[in-house]
């Protein structure tokens, strides 16, 4: 029989449970912030000050040992792991090329645990999430951008630079490299960055995949055969001395110049826009400039390789440096100098191994391995970034 006493008991129990739930949720939602920068400077310190204190996910455990960037409780990156992963990255640079930058990004995001740590602050400390994301983006750029220094300066010293094209492309790339950190700095969550990084990896994987297909292979073989046939048929040997670049026409819509007695022309506005887009992509992701400029210049102007080399080298190096400076100045992204130093050591050791192992692994099989890696990483990052869970184990 239902009695008044039983009803009172049930109502009291409900109110008690409701109050307890409120207390628990309230304590989680309004965990006391750290309140000070913990000695960390700039935007990182300011973001840390606002992060909640605690031992749970997305909280700062003040009693934990200091990890990445000196943040208590942050991952303590094993220097041996960082060194070995960087050897892998350096090896890839000298065997496949561009994919090394992607692997450097994978190291920062997944292998060293920085991605998951950063992601944990998405709801609890969004500002810290975004500062850490900028730091990861910039870490990729330090490694990839600085690694292009010597190659770029060598081609600049050789003075094979189509300077009208270099100016237009360079101006665009500098613009892109400055604008992206300003516009996106402190605004991109790690999930969004990871998702877009996954998309970029898919695109690179797609290019690599095409090169391993019969059609891709046939195109390359045909070009090689034509090249070899031409070499054999050459009857007169051209003058190997460069005649330099001479501008013959200036215009907003078209610039023409001669090189080796042959006329070339391009639209400086298209070159500028191309520079903006390529630099913006590489600045946003932290990778990607090096392998995009050359095909762009080749398709835009059809210049001889030697001229493209110098021009693209100028754009790659200058845009990367400008992007790093912009991240430092405008986003407050922090730098783990020792991590970058350790990775650079690994890269140079890996680059010494690459030429020695090349003869044992056919180029086509290398590409196939990296196609699989690219599709796996791309799928995992795309799904984890945009949908919250990885569709492949990672």
């Amino acid at each position: 029989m239902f009695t008044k006493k039983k009803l009172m008991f049930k109502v009291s129990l409900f109110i008690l449970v409701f109050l307890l739930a409120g207390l628990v949720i309230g304590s989680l939602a309004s965990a006391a912030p750290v309140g000070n920068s913990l000695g960390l400077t700039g935007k990182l310190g300011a973001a840390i000050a606002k992060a909640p204190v605690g031992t749970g996910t997305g909280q700062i455990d003040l009693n934990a040992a200091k990890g990445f960037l000196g943040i208590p409780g942050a991952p303590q990156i094993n220097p041996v792991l960082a060194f070995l992963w960087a050897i892998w990255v350096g090896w890839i640079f000298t065997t496949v090329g561009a994919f090394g930058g992607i692997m450097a990004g994978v190291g920062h995001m997944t292998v060293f645990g920085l991605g998951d740590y950063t992601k944990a602050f998405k709801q609890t400390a969004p500002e810290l999430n975004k500062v850490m994301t900028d730091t990861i983006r910039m870490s990729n750029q330090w490694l990839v951008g600085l690694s292009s220094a010597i190659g770029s300066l060598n081609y600049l010293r050789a003075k094979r630079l189509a300077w009208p094209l270099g100016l237009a492309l360079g101006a665009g790339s500098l613009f892109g490299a400055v604008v992206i950190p300003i516009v996106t700095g402190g605004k991109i969550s790690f999930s969004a960055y990871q998702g877009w990084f996954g998309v970029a990896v898919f695109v690179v994987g797609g290019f690599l995949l095409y090169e391993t297909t019969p059609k891709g292979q046939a195109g390359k073989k045909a070009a090689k055969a034509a090249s070899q046939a031409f070499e054999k048929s050459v009857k007169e040997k051209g003058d190997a001395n460069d005649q330099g670049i001479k501008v013959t026409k200036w215009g907003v819509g078209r610039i023409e110049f001669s090189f080796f007695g042959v006329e070339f022309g391009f639209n400086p506005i298209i070159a500028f826009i191309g520079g903006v887009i390529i630099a913006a992509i590489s600045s946003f992701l932290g990778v990607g400039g090096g392998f995009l400029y050359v095909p762009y210049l080749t398709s835009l102007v059809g210049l001889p390789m030697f001229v493209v080399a110098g021009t693209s080298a100028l754009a790659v190096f200058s845009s990367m440096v400008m992007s790093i400076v912009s991240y430092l100045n405008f986003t407050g992204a922090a730098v783990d100098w020792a991590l970058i130093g350790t990775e650079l050591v690994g890269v140079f050791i890996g680059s010494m191994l690459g030429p020695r192992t090349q003869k044992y692994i056919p180029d086509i099989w290398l590409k196939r391995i990296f196609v699989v890696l690219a599709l796996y990483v791309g799928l995992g990052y795309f799904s984890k970034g945009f949908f919250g869970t990885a569709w492949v184990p990672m």
Partner: protein
Amino acid sequence: MDWWISLDGLLIHLYRLTGLPVPDYFIGTFLLALITAIIGDFTTSLVYRANRGYYRKLNSRLGHLHEMSMVALHLKEKTSYKAVNREANDTFGLLFFSMFGMSAAYLWPAFFALAWMQTRFGEVRFPLLVGDWTVGFFFTFLVSYLLARVVFAQTKPYLPYFKHVVDDLNREDHHKIALEERTS
């Protein structure tokens, strides 16, 4: 990750030469930058010597393909020019990325120097002459590093070991190599 901190006792002596804090800071930073430049050049030479044959092979191929593409241009053979140029671009890509190791070898000591400087001089700021801006250890090290590179570049041809490195690196001009192979 903090083995460089164990060098603190050694490195700080670079900053105690005159007894005057500000001049000592700049002199010490310059000396530190010079040390990193010397170590960086040494490790770059190791990478170059380890990969010299590979770079020469690629440079030689590049030079040869460049000459072929110029001949094709001169003869107005567009198809051949595109084919040879494509080969050249592929080879350039391989060479460009393979030189990443040399850059990494060139720069790694500077980053450990910066890691150490952050522990010692992380709070130090210098006002600029213009406006209210200030600069910290990174900017001062960067300027010192560029200066140290210039100084070292001038003295390198006269130093043992580095003299041979300079000679070797000068020969890396791919145009000269292509010509040598053509005429040999």
